[in-house]
């Protein structure tokens, strides 16, 4: 296999090729490092390339394979992750100036689980400062770029994850999602991204943005890849008392069920209010493909999502302000204006408002499920309602215009975090400028297996997720 052939494989296919001896972990890792060196600067997607450690891990993986030691589901597969997962002894800057020298003493549970499954870590990936941007904006380290067109944003805040996986530098990545930060880069870079149910995946050793909303999840090329990664990282963790003790299903084995009989709800209001014509067309075509697989589609109602978004804003800004208050007092100038502006409102909500936002959560989540998901298995909604914007559209011009564009990025995602529901972003085509389009499937709590099964069925009859940007396949 040449480099392009190797790096065109999906994550699960690469793991299978390794198991069959068709390729070695050292070969894959060398290719990943070469691509990181070549494409990384063009896309500004790496925070730290850890070539020496990666090659050491790859040699170890190949040695274990040779010695016929038990191999995990990610044995020898090179990955890289958003730069907010703590790794003992390594700088984890969280996209910030404030933590540019921060070296944690512990390692995030999810990284330990990936290592135990055999994954090779190539480095840490670019992210928005402290995860505060849906586009990939970072004043300190520069804007990450979209591999489909570097003039466009890659989505954020897991911006490097989206760019690096889409550019075929690594086979998958972990990110976090507080208001859409996994689903935005997945949608904008043509990848599959899963925000699990709140509590499904441990957050121990992960720089928080908002304790009530943060989720850790996988970003990869296909639903099958996401299933494999989720199965490794999900499950109870003593280091995170909020993590669910619910057993972890065999997500990958459950993909085979298909979409026949799946009941899909399409909301009558809110989600489609801001959708552009070309995005709507792609979404309609994806519904047709799902119908063709035997799914039944029906209109459904949803509660007042604008109000739910307001509650999400209260939780996010108050919790972020609590985390950042001391730094805001002492190192205020070390935050980008755009980031500080999102944290500071949290200083001015009364405690009663914050408690009200938390207290209404159970009622509103149940109401959402009873209204929107009562008679269907999943909701089908846009991931982002408009074409992927350019970097210029989200950074220059009148603040009102910039704010409107950035606000639209989270229109269909942020309320899902308040409700804590699982959601997967699935590639569904390309807009007229050649940038990816995506839909989301949203389910009841812990419906990850169902969401991934539906996405996998769709990906068996479409090839959007297999297409790669031109720069990832140099001739």
């Amino acid at each position, binding site marked *: 296999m040449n480099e392009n052939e190797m790096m065109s494989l999906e994550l699960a296919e690469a793991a299978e090729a390794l198991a069959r001896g068709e390729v070695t972990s050292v070969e894959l890792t060398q290719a990943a490092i070469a691509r990181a060196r070549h494409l990384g600067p063009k896309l500004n997607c790496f925070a730290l390339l850890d070539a020496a450690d990666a090659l050491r891990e790859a040699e170890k993986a190949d040695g274990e394979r040779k010695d016929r030691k038990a191999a995990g589901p990610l044995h020898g597969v090179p990955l890289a992750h958003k730069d907010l997962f703590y790794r003992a002894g390594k700088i984890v800057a969280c996209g910030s100036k404030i933590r540019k020298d921060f070296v944690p003493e512990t390692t995030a549970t999810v990284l330990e689980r990936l290592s135990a499954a055999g994954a090779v870590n190539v480095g840490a990936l670019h992210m928005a400062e402290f995860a505060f941007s849906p586009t990939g904006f970072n004043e300190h380290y520069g804007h990450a770029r979209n591999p489909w067109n570097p003039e466009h944003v890659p989505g954020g805040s897991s911006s490097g994850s989206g760019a690096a996986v889409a550019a075929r530098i690594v086979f998958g990545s972990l990110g976090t999602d507080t208001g859409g930060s996994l689903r935005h880069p997945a949608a904008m870079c043509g990848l599959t991204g899963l925000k699990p*149910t*709140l*509590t499904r995946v441990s957050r121990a050793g992960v720089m928080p943005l908002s304790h009530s909303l943060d989720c850790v999840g996988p970003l990869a090329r296909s639903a099958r890849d996401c299933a494999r990664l989720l199965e490794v990282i999900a499950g109870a963790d003593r280091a995170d008392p*909020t993590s*669910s003790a*619910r057993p972890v299903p065999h997500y990958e084995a459950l993909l085979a069920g298909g979409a026949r009989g799946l009941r899909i709800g399409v909301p009558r209001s809110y989600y489609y209010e801001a959708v552009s014509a070309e995005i709507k067309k792609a979404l309609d075509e994806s519904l047709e493909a799902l119908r063709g697989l035997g799914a039944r589609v029906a209109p459904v109602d949803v509660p007042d999502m604008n*109000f739910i978004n*307001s*509650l999400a*804003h*209260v939780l996010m*800004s108050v919790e972020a302000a609590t985390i950042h*208050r001391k730094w*805001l*007092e002492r190192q*205020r100038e070390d935050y980008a204006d755009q980031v500080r*502006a999102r944290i*500071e*409102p949290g*200083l*001015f*909500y*009364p405690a009663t*408002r914050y*408690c*009200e*936002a*938390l*207290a*209404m*959560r*159970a*009622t509103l*989540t*149940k109401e959402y*499920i009873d209204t929107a998901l009562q008679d269907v*298995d999943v909701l089908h909604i846009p991931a982002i309602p408009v074409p992927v914007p350019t970097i210029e559209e989200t950074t220059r011009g009148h603040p009102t215009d910039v704010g409107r564009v950035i606000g639209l990025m989270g229109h269909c995602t942020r309320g899902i975090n308040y409700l*804590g529901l699982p959601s997967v972003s699935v590639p569904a085509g390309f807009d007229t400028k050649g940038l990816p389009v995506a839909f989301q499937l949203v*389910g*009841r*709590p*812990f*419906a990850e297996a*169902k969401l991934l099964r539906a996405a996998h069925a769709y990906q068996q009859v479409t090839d959007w997720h297999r297409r790669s940007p031109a720069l990832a396949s140099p001739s």
Partner: protein
Amino acid sequence: MSKSALEPIAAELQAVPLSDAEVARAVALTGPTNQRVREVADARLRFEDEPALYLACLRDEADDR
């Protein structure tokens, strides 16, 4: 705008070095949401509602179908 106009905010937060313009911006950003959440809480929040019920809700409403 004086910070004392932001009734009520904790004394420790009065020390956060924000200019009047930034305080005004924060008030503009939080004001409508503040009012909206308050109105709905007045109308809907019950004495029995408390945050711990949320995790139970996730368990009770789990997808087992």
